[in-house]
């Protein structure tokens, strides 16, 4: 099949592409290229210095006294992503199925479920940090009425991590539910009717019909959620924990909720603003994202059932 046949001119496709290319060049390719260059320099934002140091920034990330912190942050980000994505998608699908099964009566639930997504992360993070203040927060004041348990939400290593995970799941729930609802509403009713005639129960229908038919959306959501956990969890972390608390050894090299993107920020814009060091980290992040995108395109078509032939 020759896709070019649709355009009689060779120029026309480029004309159509030009607005997108312009945006990509200015806002993505140029900054990305600059980051790669910057990662080879010793460069300080305040001083405006630039000394070529080759791969020293990368070496400092992987070996030497600064490496353990980076390794810990790297691992934490992976664990965090899995903990946000897997339960997040399961809960979203369950909630979407439940409200969907209500038909028209489920409208109010759907609005309530999508709502948190519209809330700015800055507002949500600030509210959380007040709610979970161990001595004056609403949560512990409430718990005091029932048994007097007063958990230290923000500096207990396990609780703080779980709190950030839950906050991120909750914040992204609306986004996932919108996609799942759209997908669920596209499943033909006939499938369910046929299954019911064959005597299939609710669970069987869910696992045999719903789950396979929403798999393309699930697949899409896994990657958008990955982007969310890697890049956008920033605001919640900054406002709820500021990257803390420090973990017990051997996890005492960095704050437990310091994730890759937060560390880029801390090194590049916090403290004395070592831009070269931060750029090296963003280059590593860029390579990871490129690898994930490559996987998405490579396996996306094969493993997922899109329906039809």
């Amino acid at each position, binding site marked *: 099949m020759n896709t070019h046949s649709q355009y009689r001119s060779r120029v026309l496709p480029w*004309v159509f592409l030009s607005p997108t290319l312009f945006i990509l060049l200015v806002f993505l390719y140029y900054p990305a290229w600059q980051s790669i260059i910057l990662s080879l320099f010793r460069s*300080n934002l305040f001083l405006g210095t630039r000394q070529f140091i080759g791969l020293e920034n990368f070496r400092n990330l992987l070996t030497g*006294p600064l490496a353990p912190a980076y390794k810990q942050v790297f691992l934490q980000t992976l664990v965090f992503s899995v903990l946000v994505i897997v339960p997040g998608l399961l809960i979203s699908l369950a909630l979407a199925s439940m409200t969907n099964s209500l038909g028209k009566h489920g409208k109010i639930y759907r609005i309530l479920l999508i709502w948190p997504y519209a809330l700015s992360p800055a507002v949500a993070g600030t509210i959380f940090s007040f709610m979970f203040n161990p*001595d004056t927060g609403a949560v512990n004041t409430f718990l005091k009425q029932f048994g007097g348990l007063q958990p230290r*939400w*923000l500096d207990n290593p396990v609780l703080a991590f779980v709190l950030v995970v839950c906050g991120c799941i909750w914040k992204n729930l609306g986004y996932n539910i919108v996609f799942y609802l759209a997908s669920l509403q596209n499943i033909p009713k006939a499938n369910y009717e046929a299954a019911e005639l064959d005597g299939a129960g609710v669970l069987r229908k869910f696992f045999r019909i719903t789950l396979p038919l929403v798999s393309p959306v699930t697949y899409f959501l896994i990657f958008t959620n990955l982007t969310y956990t890697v890049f956008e969890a920033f605001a919640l972390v900054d406002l709820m924990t500021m990257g*803390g608390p420090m973990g*017990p050894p051997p996890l005492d090299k960095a*704050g437990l909720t310091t994730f890759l993107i937060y560390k880029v920020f801390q090194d590049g814009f916090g403290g*004395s603003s070592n831009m070269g060091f931060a750029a090296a980290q963003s280059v590593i992040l860029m390579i990871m994202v490129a690898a994930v995108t490559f996987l998405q395109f490579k396996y996306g078509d094969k493993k997922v059932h899109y329906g039809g032939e």
Partner: protein
Amino acid sequence: MKRLVTTLMFCVLTAAAFASGQSEETASADKQMTAENEVKEIQFWFAFGDAKRSGWIKDLAAEWNAANPGYRVVAEAKGSYRETLQAAVLASRQGVAPHLVHVFEVGTQLAADTGIFEPIGNVGKFDTSDYIEPVLNYYTIDGTVNSIPFNSSSPILYTNKDMMKKAGLDPDNPPETFEEILAACEQARAAGIDEAGLGFCLHGWYFEQWMAEQGAPIVNNGNGRDGRATETMLNSDAAMNIYEFIKELNDRGFYKYSGKFEDWDGSDAIFQEGKIMFHITSTADLGNISTAIGGRFEMGTGRLPIPADSRRNGVVIGGASVWLTKGHPMDEMEAARDFILFLTNTENMMDWHKMTGYYPVRKSSVDELEKEGWFADAPERTIAFTQLLETIPNQATAGGVMGTFGDTRTIVEEAIQKILNGGDVQAAADEARKLADLKLAEYNKNF
């Protein structure tokens, strides 16, 4: 082909629309430029986001503008201290630096190193003898006044007097040493007060203050004032005293904070809600905290507690100063300087102090306040002055300067949290020193 032509025409039209929009903008900018030839604009970027403090600055700018028709001060909030300094540096590289920039005290070395500022002491002759010495000291490097002190504060002890009375403690004689704090907490606990304890947010600033109180520098080379600092003192004996005290306090269940780094509001809330007997925070919050407490309990203040076996050297001045950027015509530089001298004049500093609790940075303001009887009316305010005026001028209390002060703070906070979570004190201190030295060495390689 027809389609191609239509598309191209569309593109041209869009481009034309953009271009015409832009030329209109430039035209209006030009108009503004001609207007500015008559009134010269002086930009002042500051770091107060709240309505109270930024409103105060803007009101005074309007007052100054009315008195100086040739110039117009435009005062603008630019985010946090860090963001303000970053914005100023970037603007300066684009050739559009604001004349005046509000820089926090730990940014002093960093600001000096950026090379975008002119030490204000070099701009004409003006009298600095009325500025309180320890304050001016902080902003004087190699004998030149770099910037004009504006909002200055130091940490003091806040007490819940009602709770102290209940515990059988003398509310008018708050504890002055680490040991007395611990003893007072034990006594209060024995008296059945669950809220016995000391709260302060987990912030490197307190560590720096406690180093100064013990007369200990935080970095080498005369606290960074004789030459560029190359090593930190994060595991010196003085530093160990501080870590050990926090550990002791925490182990006995007397330390309270929200759990988050640098959470001023979270810690203040614990004290305001009556959940803790003692609290440490900046004098600058005196106004806000007493308002927040309302009449729920009687608040008292005291000196910052220090180790019993140490001489009380005094506090390092915290807060911020206003810097002047290079490269403007001399008359604008002088106008900018005059504005900042006006902002910090005797009456304005008195007013500023009454509103916020920051020190008035002028000796004459303190004298005037005394004459007015302000300290008799607001006795809890006196301690801040006593503490500042008692400060022995030396390199420790002048405060350390280093380009990586921000990083060092974070590292200290992380070390303290490791200790709070049960980590070994010596190991945490040594690790902190190692990391902070590394950051400092990396920074110094820029020169």
